[in-house]
């Protein structure tokens, strides 16, 4: 009897977990630096993300060398002079959804929630809060969010000579299409 109960619980747990973890390996992370003299835009399509719908934990990990710039020199300067990607290869976000809504992945719906957590970049960690959307449409689960990062929070310095070309506040747009994680315990 006990064994049966445990076995049922185990199955239930695995199954429920299977439905509560969302995974994305190709999140698009875009950043924009808008200044009167120059606009800089770069994109990374290899962002990793995991959302645990049960606990509301949400995580991102982005390889900084994966950012593609329109111009090879900018890309080199980004990696060499600003984020120092050989020393600090990834940017991380670890946070949680505030007031986790009940999300039914089988029904078309839009959800909006506040996310709070910490961003780790360039060896520094800073608190961050944003609003994120999650959309379920015909079985496709997509998330997106917009927020700004202050370069000074992450000790990324802009030399005086280019201070008119690089914004102090960088706008970030994240888009991810999630898969429900298959049970693999």
């Amino acid at each position, binding site marked *: 009897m006990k064994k049966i109960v445990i076995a049922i619980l185990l199955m239930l747990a695995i199954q429920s977990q299977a439905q509560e973890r969302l995974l994305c*390996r190709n999140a698009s992370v875009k950043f924009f630096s808008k200044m009167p003299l120059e606009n800089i835009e770069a994109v990374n399509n290899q962002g990793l993300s995991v959302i645990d719908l049960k606990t509301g934990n949400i995580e991102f*990990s982005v390889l900084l060398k*994966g950012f593609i710039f329109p*111009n090879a*020199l900018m890309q080199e300067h980004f990696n*060499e002079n600003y984020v120092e990607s050989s020393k600090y290869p990834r940017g991380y976000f670890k946070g949680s959804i505030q007031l986790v809504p009940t999300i039914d992945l089988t029904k078309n719906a839009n959800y909006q929630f506040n996310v709070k957590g910490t961003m780790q970049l360039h060896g520094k960690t800073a608190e961050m809060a944003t609003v994120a959307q999650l959309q379920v449409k015909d079985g496709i689960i997509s998330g997106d969010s917009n927020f700004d990062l202050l370069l000074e929070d992450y000790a990324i310095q802009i*030399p005086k000579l280019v201070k008119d070309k690089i914004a102090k506040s960088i706008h970030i747009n994240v888009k991810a299409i999630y898969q429900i994680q298959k049970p693999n315990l």
Partner: protein
Amino acid sequence: MMQKIFTTVGLMILFTCSVIAQDNLLKELEKDQKGNNKVTGAFKSSRVINGHSMEMLGAGMLDFRILHRFGPVKQGIGDLFGLDQASMRMGFDFGLSNDLTIGFGRTTFKKEYDAFIKYRLIHQEQAGTPVSLVAVAGTSIFTYKSPDPLKPLTFNDRTGYYAQLIIGRKFNEAFSLQLSPTLVYRNMIDPADKKTIYALGIGARHKISKRVALVVDYSLVANGLPMSVGTNPLSIGVDIETGGHVFQLHFSNSTGMNERSFITETTNSWSKGEFQFGFNLSRIFSLKK
């Protein structure tokens, strides 16, 4: 009662498992992710000072280069330490791909044109290939009129060629070193000279801040120079990078601005206090939108 305990323990185990899994999942995914681990920025510019560096231009980039070499510093204040005299080279380099660059330029000295093609065979990787290997081939042709009207210079007389292999490594964020065995061939030479010259270029860079680096560029000429006159070119300088510009300020015993010239025509000697100031100015433009 027992049942409750079992259930609780079971749930606890499951909960722990799922927490561990959550933490590990992202780490596991990171392991699978093959990022670009190519090493970049071994040198600030595609030239150490005079010679080619292991760096390439990015695809679609145009590097407009203005080089100046002034007169001997020891001429003193009367000539503003050589600044009254200058020869210059203006050049354009194009990055056809991330591993292929072509370029051409013209030097005022001897009214000489030069062109080269530079190809990266191997790109150094983090935790991978330890060195970069770059091959360069170039040619030059001077266009000044023959001083003797009875002995006009043929096209062949005016030309020279060089071939070079650059083996370079960025050892850490600050320090990079490269060796470049070079062959220079000239068609017209002094009778005491040899047409084919072998040299070993040694280039090193040490960063002193994110945007400033010390550089040394030396060529050891192995054979062929009339060594009573010819010397090995040694240049010592500072690279300053400001966004799209790189300024390379240096002192050198050589005034040559292409391989034929600085490897085979350097006659000043540091030990006699014969050196001059010079600079390279590189401005990089993006040709593609």
